[in-house]
């Protein structure tokens, strides 16, 4: 495919330039758009730009032949004095950043990169952490690909929203442009781009959604899939998709970027695409193993941190644990012990910071604080210790870390189609993950990594690579997307690691019950509509059906609330107070309604006077609520676009809450549990899993049937966010799923039969009266 490019080159240019001629808002880039008719300096309309430059006109992007530039050409333009993309003079800050950029390892191989990029349609690029690939490669591409001259863009995907935002910010700074103009980002529910945007950082999920409307991704001239080694669900699907798109679009260039050296798998998958590897800037890390397996990895980790603090030279510590609770607990214990060490053994001061996803940003920021100074001048140096989930493994880089403590566990998403549970479970990490963690110790200088397991266990117990997300996820929403992408043969869709057939089976079945797919497996009108929403199919279907229950406003709010992280804050020190506050909003019929009460109160006048304070006083997450507000706005736009009516039942109407509960059933009828005889246990419908209501629920004990939002798998099975429903509704709203014949004999079938009989009796009486 790539061979054809040179021939097409000129044609494309002509075509593109024609496009450019049209007043597409491109005229503002006066400097180079006008070159259609030759040198812009000759353009009388633009003469004022060139008055002072006299004979030595600066290098111009448009003077270079597309896909034939060298690093020299690019460097000349980077040197300025005018910004090659905006035409504005370059700032002082730009110049200083440029210096550091040129020191990055990738810069040394810029020419090599350009040659391969120009020669091949697909390129696999391997750059270890710290090589500068995420920030530099897209810029390298910009200078050679000049997408804006062709009314196109360069996309660079990131697995995480935070990364997409922060990298875009950084690159905007490096290019001396305003974020959201030439360089922007796009994440779910937030689009910070403009028509000027030529480089877009985005989550891989966003690019996938864009592909649903533009199957050939024709807006993009080059697509860079960054952090491909993380193998997120969306990246895997994108790879499968792009593998087909590159055949249809020979002009599209694709770069797969990975941080691990095992990139041959990517090469093989993409028909032996060329590979370029750039070494990272890392120092050697000495690895230590324990002689015996540990009985308690948390306790062992704390002990190890304290030992490092007591006996190792200066340098910060990074400890990997699995979850919020574990991390907070460890932080407390380490602090206490360290204080004692300072008092009794004259140890240096030790600052301990937690780090996990749900931590508020300002607290996350604290991990970048410098280590504390010695208590007395010339005393023993202080250090900081960061206790983190695996987000510090790849996505966040903290300088100054010299010691890494790795117990070998992380919380990983798992999905099993047989019991339809998607949950986070503490699992052993992979060898690749362990290496990545160790590497974190060598960012600033040679470091040490303490693995809290034996070398034998490392070799024998850990799997080579972490399972890609596609093998650990419910694929219902992915299948809907693929259908929308026009991929009909899901069975033979070329994925790098196809999931187990049962996973696809279950996803298709779920979508069929939700009426998104018909029995033939084709997208229904409802399915097509549901795919418009960046939501789980169940949520989307609930939202779309909500006008039928006269409560689309409320369901819209609820959907937004269910799409953001935990609403209720429950600090360990003030649990009782927090619970009391939550009780203020509690609705006896369940958590969904309680969440809705919270949202309505938040939008009330009293709260809006000082929403931040109000949230703080009521133990609510201000961040989550504002985020929900934003999500609601985005979803509302899609609803309006799809002509879904927004309405509410009057609050005075006694059916106000009932309608909402019924609408809930329309999406979540497959997540229903029935109380098991007496007692606290519930049994999930169809899967017969014994579950308990999550302790956080406000629901009373007397609800026989409940819908739940989440099945949480721990040592106990919990259902979280539950609301009481009536069996009549189940039979009425989801008759296919609640077809009595599909149930095996047992309590649930008996109860359903009783309900059917009851309905018949009622109808008979009604009929009799008439």
């Amino acid at each position: 495919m790539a061979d054809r490019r040179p021939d097409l080159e000129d044609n494309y240019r002509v075509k593109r330039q024609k496009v450019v001629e049209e007043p597409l808002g491109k005229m503002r880039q006066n400097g180079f758009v006008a070159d259609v008719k030759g040198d812009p300096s000759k353009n009388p309309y633009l003469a004022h730009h060139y008055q002072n430059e006299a004979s030595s006109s600066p290098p111009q992007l448009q003077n270079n032949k597309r896909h034939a530039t060298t690093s020299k050409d690019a460097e000349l333009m980077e040197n300025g004095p005018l910004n090659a993309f905006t035409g504005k003079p370059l700032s002082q800050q730009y110049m200083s950043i440029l210096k550091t950029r040129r020191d990055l390892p990738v810069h040394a191989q810029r020419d090599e990169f350009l040659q391969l990029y120009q020669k091949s349609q697909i390129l696999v690029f391997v750059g270890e952490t710290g090589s500068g690939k995420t920030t530099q490669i897209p810029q390298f591409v910009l200078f050679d690909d000049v997408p804006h001259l062709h009314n196109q863009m360069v996309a660079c995907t990131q697995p995480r929203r935070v990364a997409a935002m922060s990298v875009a910010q950084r690159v905007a700074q490096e290019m001396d442009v305003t974020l959201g103009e030439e360089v922007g980002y796009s994440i779910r529910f937030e689009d910070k781009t403009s028509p000027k945007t030529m480089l877009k950082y985005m989550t891989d999920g966003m690019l996938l959604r864009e592909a649903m409307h533009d199957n050939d991704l024709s807006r993009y001239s080059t697509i860079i899939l960054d952090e491909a080694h993380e193998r997120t669900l969306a990246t895997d699907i994108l790879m499968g998709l792009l593998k087909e798109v590159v055949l249809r679009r020979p002009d599209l260039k694709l770069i797969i970027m990975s941080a691990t050296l095992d990139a041959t798998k990517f090469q093989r998958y993409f028909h032996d695409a060329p590979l370029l590897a750039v070494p990272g800037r890392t120092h050697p890390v000495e690895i230590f193993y324990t002689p015996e397996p540990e009985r308690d990895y948390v306790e062992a980790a704390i002990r190890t941190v304290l030992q490092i603090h007591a006996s190792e030279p200066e340098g910060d510590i990074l400890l990997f644990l699995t979850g919020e609770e574990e991390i907070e607990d460890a932080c407390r214990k380490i602090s206490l012990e360290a204080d004692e060490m300072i008092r009794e053994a004259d140890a240096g001061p030790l600052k301990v910071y937690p780090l996990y996803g749900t931590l508020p940003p300002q607290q996350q920021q604290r991990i970048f604080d410098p280590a504390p100074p010695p208590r007395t001048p010339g005393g023993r140096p202080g250090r900081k210790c960061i206790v983190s989930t695996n987000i510090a493994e790849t996505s966040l880089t903290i300088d100054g870390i010299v010691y890494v403590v790795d117990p070998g566990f992380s919380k990983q998403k798992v999905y099993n189609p047989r019991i339809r549970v998607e949950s986070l479970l503490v699992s052993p990490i992979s060898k690749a993950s362990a290496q990545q963690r160790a590497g974190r110790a060598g960012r600033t200088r040679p470091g040490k990594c303490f693995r809290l397991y034996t070398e034998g266990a490392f070799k024998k117990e850990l799997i080579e690579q972490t399972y890609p997300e596609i093998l650990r996820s419910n694929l219902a929403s992915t299948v809907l997307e693929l259908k929308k992408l026009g991929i009909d043969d899901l069975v033979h869709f070329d994925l790098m690691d196809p999931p187990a057939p049962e996973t696809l089976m279950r996803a298709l079945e779920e979508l069929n019950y939700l009426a998104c797919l018909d029995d033939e497996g084709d997208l229904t009108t409802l399915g097509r509509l549901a795919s418009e929403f960046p939501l789980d199919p169940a949520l989307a279907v609930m939202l779309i059906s909500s006008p039928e229950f006269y409560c689309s406003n409320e369901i819209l709010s609820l959907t937004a609330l269910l799409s953001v992280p935990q609403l209720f804050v429950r600090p360990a020190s003030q649990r009782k107070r927090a619970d009391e506050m939550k009780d203020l909003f509690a609705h006896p019929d369940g958590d969904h309604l309680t969440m809705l009460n919270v949202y309505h109160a938040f939008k009330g006048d009293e709260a809006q006077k000082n929403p931040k304070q109000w949230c703080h006083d009521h133990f609510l997450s201000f961040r989550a609520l504002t985020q929900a507000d934003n999500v609601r706005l985005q979803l509302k736009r899609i609803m309006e676009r799809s002509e879904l009516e927004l309405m509410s039942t009057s609050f005075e109407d006694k059916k106000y809450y009932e309608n909402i509960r019924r609408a809930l059933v329309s999406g979540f009828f497959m997540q229903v549990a029935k109380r098991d005889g007496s007692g606290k246990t519930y049994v999930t419908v169809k899967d017969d899993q014994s579950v308990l209501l999550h302790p956080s629920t406000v629901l009373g004990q007397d609800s026989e049937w409940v819908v739940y939002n989440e099945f949480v798998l721990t040592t106990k099975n919990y259902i979280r966010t539950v609301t009481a429903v009536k069996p009549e509704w189940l039979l009425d709203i989801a008759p296919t799923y609640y077809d009595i014949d599909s149930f095996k004999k047992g309590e649930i079938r008996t109860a359903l039969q009783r309900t059917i009989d009851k309905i018949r009796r009622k109808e008979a009486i009604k009929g009799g009266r008439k």
Partner: protein
Amino acid sequence: MGNSDEEDDYMSMFIAEPTKPQQETSIQRRARKEREAEIRGRVKSKAEKQADEAAAREAALAKSLDSSNKGFKMMEKLGFKPGDTLGATKHARAEPIHLVIKEDRGGIGLDTEKKRKFREQVEHEAKRVKADEGEYRERIRLEREEKRREGQILNAQKVAERLDNEAKDVAVLGEVSNTEPEAQGKSSDTQRASEPSQSINVLWRGLVRRRLEKERERRMRYDLTQSLSRLPTYEDPDEDENYRLALGKENKWSSLEEELEEEDPELDEFNGLPSDQRLGRLVLYMRDTHHYCFWCKYQYPDGSMDGCPGTTEDDHD
């Protein structure tokens, strides 16, 4: 219900009970309902619940989705067959990833280490038990064997003695063929009795000695009851010579006494041999000397012992 019926039938001789489809009375029904409700209403312990939960989960996890699934039917239309995998290439995953729920804070490798240690212990224990068991059985077997062989030795000794005596008698008979058999017998008996034990073949000397010892014991006991306060060996210097004679108190004890108390290294040596060797020597002796096979229980007419399968017991199986 089926079970209780069977239980009813258990003691009955009839195959079909005509009263079987008996209706349960209202009282019975109530009792049954109460019983059932009690079982249902019984609050299970935490551990039981957890075990139930885990069992239900494992059961569900072990059961794969089958062709009754609607999704399967859609996939079938795309050419999917049971047992296939997804994707464009082969070797894709066929089974979902196994769910492992970590229930403690044990470090990586601890479980395997525990399992390994446990397995080792179990293996060790099993080996020990097996060894003990084997040893015991072997010991018992050997003891029995030994006992049996001792019995055989005793028998063989008796046979050998008999054969020897018979042979001697024949020889004596040949010498003094004209003497009366009765007298002959007597003479040979007395002769034998007075024979010094050293001259008896070592093979059955033990037997003779034991017999003598027994005899002495018997006599001593007899004497004890007869002579009341005196040991049979007591020699009363005042006793009349005639009395002594009349009471049969001959002085033969002394020689026996001496003999019995005498050390007999040859016999000790023989007795020190393992039982099978002693038996073997006896058997061979009888074969060589008397053409008698201990195992065939038959005295062959000549040295070729035509018809005897061999010299050991095993040969005669």
